[in-house]
Every structure is written in C-alpha cells, then in structure tokens.
C-alpha cells in the first residue's frame, strides 16, 4: 500500500500532466528529488512527460510561492518597462501549495506581484515537513546516505547507521505549531482539507524568549546569529523578499554594513524580519534554507504574534483583508506611546 505522500505524488503527477497536456498551464512548479538525502529540488515541469519527475514527500521545505512571480514573468513576452501590457491572456503556471504557501500567494496577489488568474493552484493540506537538522541531531550528526519515508516514521541509513525515527519528532517547529495547514486559495485539491488545527501553545518558542530578561534576550539573539555568514539564503528563500534591491544591497544610503560584523549582521536580521511583519506566514523557508542552522524564524514568529495580538490579523488569510501595516484603525493600541503610558502610570 502506498504511503500518503506516495499517493499525493501520484495524484500530483496526474494533475500536472493533465494541466500541461491540455495546455492550461505552460509549466508546473513542484519538487523533484536530487542527489542528497532529505534535500528536495524545486522543479519546473515544462513538458507533460516532466510531470513524472514530480515528487511529494516530507522534505519539500522551501516555499514554492517564492518561485512563482519570476516564473510567471518568464512566460511574458519581453517588453520595455513602459510598454503597455501584452494583449490577451498570458500563459498560466500550475503549482502545488500547502496552507502557508497558498497564504504567501495571497500576499503576493495583494502586493501586486502576481495575478491570481495566472496560477492554477493544486492544494495539498500539509502534514508538516521534516527538519533535516532535527534528523541530524537525532543521529548525532552521523553521516546519512539514505532516508526512507513511511507515513509516521523515517528509516535513516548511513555508514554504520540504521535508525527508525518517529516522523512527528523531527517535523519543523513551524509545522508543529501550524494552525492553518489547509490552502486558503486553490483550484483543485489533492486529498481532504483537515481544518484549522487547535494549537494551544503556538507561540511557546516566542514566549520563552519574551520571558527572559533584556540582557538574556540580547544574549540569545546575538548567539543565535553570530554564525551568520550573510549568504542571504534566508532572504532568498523567502517569498516576501522580492525587492530588486534589498536594503542590504543599497549603498546610497548604506543602511547596514555588508560584511560579517556583529552589528551589521544584527541589523540585517532585525530589518529582514521587520520587513516581513504582517506578511509572514511562518512557512519556515528561511530557517530551512539557512546553512548555519540559525533559527531566524523565531523573529518573524514574534512579529506574527504581535500583529495578531495588536491588530487581530494573520497574513494571507484572504485577498481582501488589508495588510496590517498598510492600514490602521483609529483605536489601535498605543500603550507603548510614552505620553499615553504617562496617563496610565498616573492612574
């Protein structure tokens, strides 16, 4: 009997092949496997037969929304910046999407990065993706040469190594605390929607840090990022980071030094996260992409928590809902404002 992911893979190939064959899409964006265990390759199927290379498993950790806008652009006829848009409908692209990916697609639509009509979304309700680093920890960083996946376990093999690991134990933190595993926009579904998950302590990681002293928080933050090599994998894996010139690349003004110095690295991480405030869906791509094992996701998670607490919104839940930092309410909380807290203190 095939595993759940094997079934999904089959159905995904079928649907992608159909979309490509029928000409509904010019390409289908999914994953294929590569040469290293537990690392999947985002893959663009351009011909119906490519669909057979598509694969779905628990290691599809990078958010495919990240690839969509440039992929869609690549199918537009070339034109100069001020030429009018081409007439008639433009080619579409199909894509597989879990809850968070689809929410990032919503944000991309809201932020004018792509048109909803141009993507055919095959929804997959997510069962959570595996954190390669957790697996490595579980085997004490022994070398792994193959991993076989069952529905609820992973069989890990390497030189002198064979171990079965409980799948849920090595699921990424963001997936373990994920509330919305279902796609919010899709054209077709593979499998059933599972509904929102009831997670009591979805912000536990954040709260643990909040409860530290300022000094300890700084200690945590600096030690978390001190290994950063400024490779920008976190930024580049993020579907929100589409600026042609990122603030770190700017030299006029020079917001932040470009090299590996603690203050500049800190400011890079602060601003990168801050720029995601109200937009981040906690897809975890940043953390998954980081070669140095930095848990920068906690930063965006904190912002997600505050935006939810302060303004009651979560990113990408619907195309109509305004992005929280480009809107306001008259009675937004303002206890943080000194002159307002003066009032409070005197009370």
């Amino acid at each position, binding site marked *: 009997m095939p595993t759940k992911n094997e079934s999904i893979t089959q159905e995904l190939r079928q649907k992608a092949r159909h979309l490509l064959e029928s000409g509904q899409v010019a390409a289908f964006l999914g994953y294929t496997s590569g040469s290293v265990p537990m*690392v999947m390759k985002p893959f663009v199927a351009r011909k119906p037969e490519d669909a057979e290379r598509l694969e779905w498993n628990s290691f599809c950790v990078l958010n495919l929304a990240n690839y969509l806008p440039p992929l869609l652009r690549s199918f537009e006829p070339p034109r100069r910046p001020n030429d009018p848009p081409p007439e008639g409908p433009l080619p579409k692209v199909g894509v597989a999407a879990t809850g968070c990916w689809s929410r990032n697609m919503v944000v991309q639509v809201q932020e004018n990065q792509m048109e909803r009509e141009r993507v055919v979304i095959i929804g997959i309700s997510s069962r959570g993706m595996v954190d390669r680093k957790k697996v490595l920890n579980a085997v004490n960083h022994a070398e792994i040469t193959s991993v076989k996946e069952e529905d609820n376990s992973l069989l890990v093999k390497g030189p002198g190594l064979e171990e079965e690991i409980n799948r849920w134990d090595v699921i990424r933190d963001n997936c373990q605390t994920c509330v919305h595993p279902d796609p919010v926009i899709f054209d077709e579904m593979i499998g059933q929607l599972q509904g929102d998950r009831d997670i009591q302590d979805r912000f536990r990681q954040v709260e643990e840090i909040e409860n530290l002293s300022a000094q300890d928080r700084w200690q945590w933050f600096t030690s978390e990022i001190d290994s950063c090599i400024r490779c920008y*994998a976190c930024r580049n894996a993020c579907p929100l980071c589409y600026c042609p010139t990122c603030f770190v690349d700017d030299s006029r003004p020079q917001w932040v030094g470009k*090299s590996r110095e603690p203050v500049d690295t800190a400011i890079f991480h602060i601003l990168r996260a801050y720029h995601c405030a109200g937009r981040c869906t906690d897809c975890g791509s940043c953390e998954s992409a980081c070669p140095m094992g930095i848990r920068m996701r906690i930063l965006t998670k904190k912002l997600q928590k505050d935006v939810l607490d302060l303004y009651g919104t979560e990113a990408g839940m619907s195309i109509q809902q305004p992005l929280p930092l480009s809107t306001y309410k008259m009675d937004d909380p303002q206890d943080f404002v000194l002159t307002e807290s003066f009032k409070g203190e005197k009370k």
Partner: protein
Amino acid sequence: MLDNKDFSAWLSRLSDSHDIYGPKKTRKGMLEWARLEGGQLPDPEPGVPKSSIKTFYFPQPETLFEFSARPKKEDAFRLHEPSRHQNPRLLIGVRPCDARSVVLNSMPYQEDPYFQENRRNTFLLGYACSQGCSTCFCTWTGGSPVGQDGLDILAFLLEDGLVLEPVTERGEELLEKAGSARDLTRAQEQKVDEIRQKAPASLPEEMEPAPRLREKELMALYDAPFWQELSDSCINCGTCTFLCPTCYCFDIQDETLRGRGRRIRYWDSCMFPLFTLHASGHNPRGEKIKRVRNRFMHKLKYFPDRFGPLSCVGCGRCVRDCPVNIDIRQVMKELLAI
C-alpha cells in the same frame, strides 16, 4: 609521533606566540573553526568544518585603509593603514582539500598584498582524512585526502596520538619546537600507510575532468540546455559561494562612521544582484540563469583555461548545504557529457 598530551603541551607553548585555531563542535552540533587556547585540541570529527579556511586569508571584511571624513581636521583625508593582526596564526586540523584551496586562490591573488600577507602569516597543520564523506570528491579535482598541497605540516590521526610530517621548511621549523617527539612504532607506521592507501579509495573514482574541460569549446558549454533546469531551482543565495574555499570574488565599499571612514573589501557572490552590476544600471549577468552558469563556468572552465586546475577542491560543502540540492558533481558530469 606525538601523543595527544604532548601535542597539547606543544600547542600550549605555541599559543604564546601564535593564535591557534581548529575545528570544534558548536552547541548546534556542527563543526566550525574556533580559537584554541591553553593547549586545547580540535575535535577529531571526520569531514570539513562548516566554513572553509578562506576566512583567514580573505577576511570578511578586510579593511584596506582608514581615513578621516572631515576635510578640515589635521588628519583630513589622510589615508592610514589599519592596525593589523600581529601574531602569526596556526590552523590545526586543516583538511587537505581546504589547504589546497590556498594554493589555488594564490594563483589569481599572486599580486594581492593583503592575501599574500595573510598567507605568510598563517601556518597550516593538516589532518589527513582516513575516510571520505558521501559529499567528498577531492580526487576529481586533483586533490587527495592525504594530500600535502598548501600545508606546512601534515598529520595522521591515530588512536593514541598523531603522526606529524613536515611539508614546508617553516613547517619543519615549527615542528622542531614540538620537542618530545617519539619514533613511530611498526603498527603506527602500518596504520599511516593504510590511511594513505585506503582513504583515496573511499572516494569516487578519479575522472580528471580538468584537462577534459579545458579542451571543450567554451560556447558549447555556455549554451548547454541543462543550465535552465539548474537555475529553475536555484534561489541565488550565497551559501555555495560563501562556504566554498575557492570562491574568492570580492566587492569594495567605503564606510563612514561618526566622521571617520574606512575602505573595506568583503566577499561577493556571483549569485548576488550587485555582482558585475555596471554603474549604468546594466548587468551582463542580470538574470538568474546567467549567474548560476557563471559560478560553474568560472570554476570549471574559465579558471582551468587560465590557470590549469579547476577552481574547486572537492570539499563538498556546496553539495552538503545547498538548500535546493544543486550538485557541482552533477554539473561536472553534464559538462563532460557535452
């Protein structure tokens, strides 16, 4: 032959006059370069540390000079040398692939005073690899798990100590201070030989791609169709470049701070949007596919055409840590197939 205690004692003595570094396991479980003090020994884990040793030759950032940004002060616009590191550095536990990268990088940086100064000032004590990892392929690139290129001293790790072989004169000088060296026992000699024999065999079969690639026609490689699929999955991050021991591209920037300024050199990556960006705004490598291609063409074609060897030591870092599993070994095979 030094037992671990004597080795430690030697290092401890050396640390008065040298800054000593070696790979240690971090709290996150990965192997990384760390300052070793008071005779600390590196962790004897197999494989290469996360970062390559290029940090020591090609610091991130390197201050080229400093200046005052206030034209009317006495030191107005006068450039001065930054205070530089004084003590010689000794790196311990360098894997032969990393050591070889210094030799390769030295080729384009022949005339670079900063690089050469750092090279003069840095001593390498290498650890021979007794077993290749699944991502290793030094043998393809002209290296060897027990190779000596770039090292001052090569060590073989045995259960009860290390066998140290001087490679350079200055390595020999350094070793002289080790003092209490003992002669090798037969068993130990056998063990070293066994490593020399078996280690290369644990790696993929030699292909000698460099000469074959040099022979290929440039444009045929450049126009190969597989680049498209490769770039489809690439996210243009700098992981491969920054972890790579032989990626040596840099950018330069002036920084000012509170009325003072400095010019720094820091790592660049052909993956980044500013790479080869012209002042006009035009970038000959404006698209992802061109950047991805550049990285591999540089390593596997342009560099060999210019200097002979590949600009790759087969350490496997890029293979291990690429978030989208772009594998240079695959690329090599694709290119060789053309």
